[in-house]
């Protein structure tokens, strides 16, 4: 499903942020991505989502080489992904409902389908009843969960979650992890960047560890 083959990424000024990273995730696998602050986790996600592109090496996603994708095709690849951003990236002047509905609207679902899917996603993250609120009137953890709902609402092939539980209490974190495992059960691949050691240790999934851009461990 996702394959990194000797991928390196450098930013002008700061130099290499990822160095010869190689790993492979199969369909329906959950993996944690850890590493110190600034290790390159978000950069790795950005390469998969083609937010940054100038990498060396080869990234295969769903049997396609991402470096071969033309700009005009990027939106269609992104629709197969569910992206959870470290800084949420919500539309502050739209309601929670509109935020979560955005991927569905973009993909041209009908109003009825959108209504059903959005409410289902919001109930999974415990935000049913907050559809009409604006993101800025939500607590930090609630905003984070809106971002999670938006990432899963359109049933992507892969979920890329960048620090999805940074602002959630332990119970909610466990619930969100449970949600990801439900997706895993229907064949969705999940990659989660996190600092939460206790979360990693309680769950028995593969752990990829980055250190200054090098993949130093890939253990179960």
């Amino acid at each position, binding site marked *: 499903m996702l394959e990194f083959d000797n991928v390196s990424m450098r930013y002008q000024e700061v130099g290499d942020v990822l160095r010869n990273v190689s790993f492979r995730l199969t369909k329906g696998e959950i993996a944690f991505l850890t590493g110190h602050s600034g290790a390159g986790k978000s950069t790795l996600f950005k390469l998969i989502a083609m937010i940054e592109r100038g990498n060396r090496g080869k990234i295969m996603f769903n049997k396609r080489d991402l470096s071969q994708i033309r700009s005009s095709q990027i939106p269609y690849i992104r629709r197969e992904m569910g992206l959870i951003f470290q800084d949420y*990236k919500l*539309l502050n002047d739209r309601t929670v409902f509109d935020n979560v509905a*955005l991927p569905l609207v973009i993909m041209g679902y009908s109003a009825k389908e959108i209504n059903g899917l959005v409410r289902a996603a919001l109930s999974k993250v415990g935000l049913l009843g907050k559809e009409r609120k604006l993101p800025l009137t939500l607590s930090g953890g609630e905003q984070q969960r809106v971002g999670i709902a938006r990432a899963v609402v*359109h049933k992507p*092939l892969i979920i890329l979650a960048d620090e999805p539980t940074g602002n959630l209490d332990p119970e909610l974190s466990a619930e969100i992890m449970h949600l990801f495992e439900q997706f895993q059960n229907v064949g969705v691949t999940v990659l989660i960047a996190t600092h939460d050691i206790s979360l990693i240790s309680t769950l028995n999934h593969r752990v990829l560890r980055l250190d200054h851009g090098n993949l130093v461990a890939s253990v179960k």
Partner: protein
Amino acid sequence: MKHKNKHKPRNNHNSIIEAKRNPKQTSKTGGTFVDKLYAYRDQHAQALFSSLGRLVASRLNALLTVIVLSISISLACGFYLLIMNTKQLTVDLESSNQISLFLHDDVSLASANRLANGIKLDPSVQMVKVITKEQALKEFEDFSGFGDAVRALEKNPLPIVLQVIPKNSLEEGQNVETLVENFKQAAEVDFAQLDLHWVKRLQTMIEVSQCAMILMGILLSLAVLVITGNTIRLEFHTRRDEIIIAKLVGATNSFVQRPFLYSGFWIGFFSGINAWFIVTLMMLILKQSVEKLSMLYNSSFHLLFMGFFETLALIFVSSMLGIVGSWVVVQIQLQQLKS
């Protein structure tokens, strides 16, 4: 908008987990063509009216934009009407550009008429009018204010005069002079006089005002373009985050730019209507004094307002301006966003 790779949901379960994930579908397999057409139309209609809704929601914002645009458009329109009205005035004034042929004292009215008919055949002549001695005296009295003085004369000292109005003479001062030379050759003609002084004055006045108008026109067009572009650019800027986020969750460029094109349309549309009202109001205010003037000139001058088709053109052009302006700005901004 491309439909390739577009997911069409088939099931309608409420739980996103239990529902089996839709396999990737292309537009060839998912739904009938008519369904797709409806969805496409719905999406456009929704964008059109939601853009109006957004405009109404950000009232002050939209109001100011429309005011700015409609003022610049109405300036351009006022300018257009000025040109159209001046053109009419020019036609009116053309009659003052005439050649007076003073015939010898002994030429009879009959031969004067014959000469007039001959001149009429000249292709560059528009009209010839014969002024008899009596008419000339009357006109002279009226015009010069020397009425009593002239009336005191025993014998009418004035000759028969032919008034010749050349065609398009205003534009080609030189030609008129050769025409005069020609007329002078006729035996009946004592001397010919061209009110060239007036012609030149008029020509120069028209030149000056044309020059001023072209300059104003350039400036105004520039103003309208820059103001439109700038307003839309700033609106884009305030919605930059929205665009970035939409693109991150899979929006195509055409999806992103659609609301901008629509709000560009609405802004242009309302600005056009608004401009029409401003211009019409201005013309109504001007109307009275212009008509007074026109009466004094005994001229058939009537103030031109925006006609039906001109109004349609105005609204069409300003709507297009909004759309094109948005389009250009959005393209530039999308380029800058790269990813």
